C-alpha cells in the first residue's frame, strides 16, 4: 500500500505492507534511527513519536494508519542547529545515562510541556509514566523537564 506522511515537516512516500509498524517505517524505511525499540509488548515507550501532535507508541501503530498524518520524531526537535530546551534540559540535568529511553522521554516531555507549560512534579511524573527508564534515572529526568519548563517560560534555572 502507498503511504504519505509528513515527518518533521518533510513529506515522505513509501510503498509498504499493511503489517509494517510505524516504528519500522521510521527506522528501517526512512532511516531515522533516533526512535528506539525497547520491547515487543507495548510497555516501554522508547518508540514514542508524535502523531498529529500527540505522543503515541509507534510500535503499536501500523504505518498505514499514519497515512496522511503528521509525525514528529526526536530528529525534529532541534531547529536551525539549536537544541530544543527539552534537549538542553536533559543535558544540563544529566537526564540520561545509557540514553536508550531518551528519545521517547524527550518526545513525551516535549508534547507534555506544550499542553502544560507550568507543571507540578507530580504532573510530570504522571506524564512520563508510559516511558520506562531501565537505568531508573527518573529523578534527573523530572529535573530535566522542569529545566525545560523554566527555559520555555523565559525563566532562568
Amino acid at each position, binding site marked *: 500500500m502507498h503511504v504519505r506522511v509528513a515527518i518533521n515537516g518533510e513529506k515522505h512516500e513509501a510503498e509498504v505492507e499493511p*503489517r509494517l509498524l510505524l516504528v519500522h517505517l521510521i527506522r528501517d524505511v526512512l532511516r531515522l534511527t533516533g526512535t528506539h525499540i525497547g520491547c*515487543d509488548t507495548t510497555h516501554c*515507550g522508547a518508540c514514542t513519536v508524535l502523531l498529529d501532535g*500527540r*505522543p503515541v*507508541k509507534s510500535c*503499536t501503530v*501500523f504505518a498505514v494508519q499514519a497515512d496522511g498524518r503528521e509525525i514528529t520524531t526526536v530528529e525534529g526537535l532541534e531547529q536551525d542547529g539549536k537544541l530544543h530546551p527539552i534537549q538542553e534540559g536533559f543535558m544540563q540535568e544529566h537526564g540520561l545515562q545509557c540514553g536508550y529511553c531518551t528519545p521517547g522521554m524527550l518526545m513525551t516531555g516535549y508534547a507534555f510541556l506544550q499542553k502544560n507549560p507550568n507543571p507540578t512534579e507530580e504532573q510530570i511524573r504522571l506524564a512520563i509514566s*508510559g516511558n520506562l527508564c531501565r537505568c531508573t534515572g527518573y529523578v534527573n529526568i523530572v529535573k530535566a523537564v522542569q529545566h525545560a519548563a523554566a527555559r520555555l517560560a523565559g525563566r532562568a534555572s
Partner: protein
Amino acid sequence: MAVPRIVRRLGVSRPTVTACLVRFERVGVAGLLDRPRPGRPRKLTPALEGRIALVASARPRDLGVPRADWSLSRLREYLLRTGMLPALSLESLRTALRRGGLSLKAARTGMARKGTTTMIPAAFEYHTPTSIGEAAALLAKLGDDAKVLAGGQSLIPMMKLRLATPRHLIDISRISGLAYIRESGGVLAIGALARESDLEESDVIRARYPILLDASKVIADPLVRNLATVCGNLAHGDPANDHPAAMLALGAELVAAGSKGERRIPAASFFTGPFSTALKPGEILTEIRIPTPPPRSGGAYVKLERKVGDFATAAVAVQVTVGANGTCERVGIGLTNVGPTPIKAKKAEGFLQGKRPDEAAIKQAAVLAAEESQPTSDLRGPVEYKRDLVRVLTARALVKALERAGK
C-alpha cells in the same frame, strides 16, 4: 500455533484459548495454572498437552530458564518445578510433543516466538471504510477472517505476539463524526472513536461523570490512552479492562450496528465471557449511552494495580444516587478482574437499595460484593487476598461516591 488450531485440538472454546494465551503473555506460566485440585494426578489430558505445547513454544529465557533452547529433560524439569504437571516421564513428554505436532526443533522456533521477529504481525489486508454502513458491510462479507481496528492498543499487541492473526483489518478510525462525547436529552453519548485521552480532557466528564475520569486515569499509560478508544475497551471483552465495570455501575446501554440495522444492548448483558461480548459477528459498537445522573448522584472507580499500566489486581466501580430522605435511590456496583467477566454486584446493590448508607450498611454491602466476586489465583495474588481486596475497595468506592453525591 494459531488460535483456531489450538481451539480444534483442545476442543475448548475460542475465548478460553485466547484468554489462556493472554494470561500467559501477561503473567507468565502462572496464568495458565488452574486452581490446584485434590485427588490423584491425572493422565495427560488435551488441556495438559496444550500447556506442554505452550511452554515448548516459548523461549526458555522468557520463562526465566537461563538457556537458549529447550532439551527434553529441561522442559520436563520446568513443567514439574512450576507445578504445571503433576508427574511426567520423558517418554510421555516426547509423545505429547509429537501428538501436538511439535518436535523440539519446531518447538524452539514456534509461531509466537520466531527469533527476533516476534514483533512482526502476520500479514493482513487493510480496509478503510468511510462510513459505519460500509464497515458493517465489509465485516459481513469477510466474516470470521476480519476484525475491527479502532485504537489498536489491545489488538496490535496481540497481533505482534501472533495471539491474533486476522486476515483483514477494518480500520474504523477514518470514519468521521465518531469521536464525540456529548450530553443531551438526559443521555451522555460516547462515540466509537472517542479516545481515553478525550474523556480525560472533557469538561462534561470532569463535571458530572467522575467515575469515568477515575477509570480513564488508571487505564494503561498516557501514551496508550492517546489512541485507545472507550468503545474498544468494552468491545475487547477483557475482564481485566477497567471501563466495563464502570459501565455496569452507570447502567449504560451499548449501541451495536450491523448490516441489518441497529440494536441496543444493556451493559449488564453485554459481557458474556472472557474476551467475548454480546456483539454478533458483523456488528460494530458505535456508541455508549449513559443516563445522565440526577442531582445528588456520585460515582467513583477505585483500582489497585502493582504499577502504572498494570491491569487491576482488583477494582470496584460505584455509582449512587441519594434521595431527599437520605436513602439510596439507585446503586450500581461493578467489579473488575475478579471473574471471567466484569461482575455486576447485584446482591450488594440490592442490599443498599432504599437504605440509609451509614457505616454499617457500607460494611455489609462490601462483604456482599466480596462474596459475589469470583477471583482466581495468579501472580497478582491468591483468591483469599483478592476477595478481601474487593471488600476493602468496595467500601472505599462507596464512601468516595457518597461524598461526591454530597450526602
